[in-house]
């Protein structure tokens, strides 16, 4: 599916500087039971709500200005655990457009870009500075992400560099449909299949037992 092109993002950045935030924490399993679940409401549900479903006032996304966060500042190994793409969907539905972390888990990283969510790698020092800014800047926590320039501007005026491979940044900025891009190679795929069917016939030519 064609995505809307990524545009530079401005707004509050929510600090959640824990390491190893896993996909179960990002979107708990009960939200995966039905295709119509409200994933934005489910984002970080176990951290956000108590057992009675009430908001827990201490959690960052329950506090102004982070209720309308567009950016998430996280610790290393963000998105580890399962392959559930609902983790990326929940972030996007909530309104998060960019996640910064010193390191992302592999499957989450792929899932993020396929949903127009920028997963940007930033040094731990950079994260620490941005987190400190977000925690002290109160309700004027105004950050700006410049994807082409690979910088995050903090409310204190400091600009922090981040890393995104060029091809991923370009695909985000164009809003590529990844399947359409691959289908440009349909001839290569067909040629591979034809020769592979000779080399490894047991892969392609196997009967379906009754």
């Amino acid at each position: 599916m064609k995505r809307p092109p990524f545009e530079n993002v401005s707004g509050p950045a929510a600090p959640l500087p824990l390491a190893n935030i896993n996909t179960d924490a990002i979107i708990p399993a009960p939200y995966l039971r039905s295709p119509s679940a409200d994933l934005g409401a489910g984002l970080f549900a176990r951290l956000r709500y108590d057992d009675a479903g009430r908001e827990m006032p201490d959690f960052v996304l329950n506090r102004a200005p982070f209720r309308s966060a567009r950016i998430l500042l996280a610790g290393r190994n963000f998105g580890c655990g399962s392959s559930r793409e609902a983790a990326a969907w929940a972030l996007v539905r909530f309104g998060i457009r960019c996640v910064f972390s010193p390191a992302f888990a592999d499957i989450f990283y792929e899932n993020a870009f396929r949903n127009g969510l920028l997963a940007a790698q930033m040094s731990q020092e950079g994260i620490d500075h941005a987190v400190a800014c977000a925690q002290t800047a109160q309700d004027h926590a105004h950050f700006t992400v410049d994807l082409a320039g690979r910088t995050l501007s903090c409310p204190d005026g400091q600009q922090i560099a981040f890393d995104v491979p060029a091809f991923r940044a370009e695909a985000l900025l164009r809003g590529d449909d990844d399947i359409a891009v691959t289908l440009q190679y349909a001839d290569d795929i067909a040629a591979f299949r034809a020769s592979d069917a000779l080399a490894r016939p047991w892969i392609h030519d196997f009967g379906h037992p009754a």
Partner: protein
Amino acid sequence: MAAETLFGKIWDSHRIRTLDDGRDLIFVDRHLLQETTSAAAFDGLAHDGRPVAQPGLTFATQDHIVSTEPVRSLASNPGGRELIDLMGRNARSHGITMFGLDDPRQGIVHVIGPELGLVLPGTIVACGDSHTSTAGGLGALGIGVGTSEVEHVLATQTLVLPRPKTLRMRFDGRPGNGVTAKDLVLHALGRFGIAVGTGHAIEYTGDVIRALPLEARLTICNMSIEFGGRLGLIAPDDATAAYVRGRPFAPTGRLWDEAKAYWRTLRTDDEAVFDRELSLDVSTAAPQITWGTTQQDVIGIDEAIPDPTTIADLASRRRIQAAIDYMGLTEGRPIEGLPVDVVFIGSCTNARLSDLEAAAAIARGRHVAPGVRALVVPGSSAVKREAEAKGLDRIFSEAGFEWRSAGCSMCVSINEDIVPAGARCVATSNRNFENRQGPRSRTHLASPAMAVAAALAGAIADVRRLA
């Protein structure tokens, strides 16, 4: 020709081309679907009017959300009905073979893949589930993907991925009494941590690995994702071929001979260079159990809960303290003897026949402690039948365990099988994250034998005292 790793040989033989951005377009031999991560992928196809490229190479099951009631029907699981129906409808309308609730071949996707001969040595298997790495136990590349990539595979039978780096993890020494494949991989997680494999394909080697039976190799590779690895694998050998032979979708006749000859070439060349090498001696490892909320929070059964005040690094100290608080533990105390409420024997890590046999061997003639709920959930309907043919169901029932139908169950608690809030569970699954088995559930990961020992004692116990 340059020396090559096993991973490199398989990857390269599936590479259709390398794209300008450096990523590889690779062919997917077998695409396996499960009900919770595929519905949106079919919606995407419908939206763009795209067909499934290779329905004959695509297979579906229902495992995550299904009820595991001993006698079940669609009505046993009203909450999962919608996704179960959608999987069935999507499979039918695209001509995809599905092993649904009533099919004798139904089961956890990573259990039935090898069991049905869908996973073969040297293949690339994709599935919208992180534990697809299990396939590596047969010398296949099992690649877990998200829903967008499920849609991509459905539409193109390919994946576009950066080529992972390579990591060799060698296991040396002689495993002690009571130390199973699960203990080996947990021990390695304790040593190397949950991010050591990020961006890597892990090859497990060493005499300890070579000597493992096939189902134990599946257990090791299953937990590759727990290291953060993209996939993990073990070189196929004669035992692998013997395991695959005669399975429903395995090659036969002339194709079998050709396939088997090719599988002989699937090994890492002596001179091949890995991006990273790790090794550990397992001789002194005791049976393992996790105490905390990530899989690296693991100790031997004879060890004590760590004391955060002895940890210099502030961030680690805080993390360990938080895990101790969540798990309701006291630092410095032995883990043995901690009372448990629930025991779960199941999941794609440890619910194959050999796992249930190991569990039954300990349970036989003994009884679950009062107040403990203990479940045995076979990994597939076939495992269930085979276990029943061997009388394992009776051993478990007589010992006070529930004998249930196949599915993911309490591994992910997306159906009705939930650990109550605050309750402590010893589980043979692979994730001990906060809230994983239900809100405020507390999970300790261990081997099937250790799980039985806990059920019998009503507390975390050392299986070596029972064997």
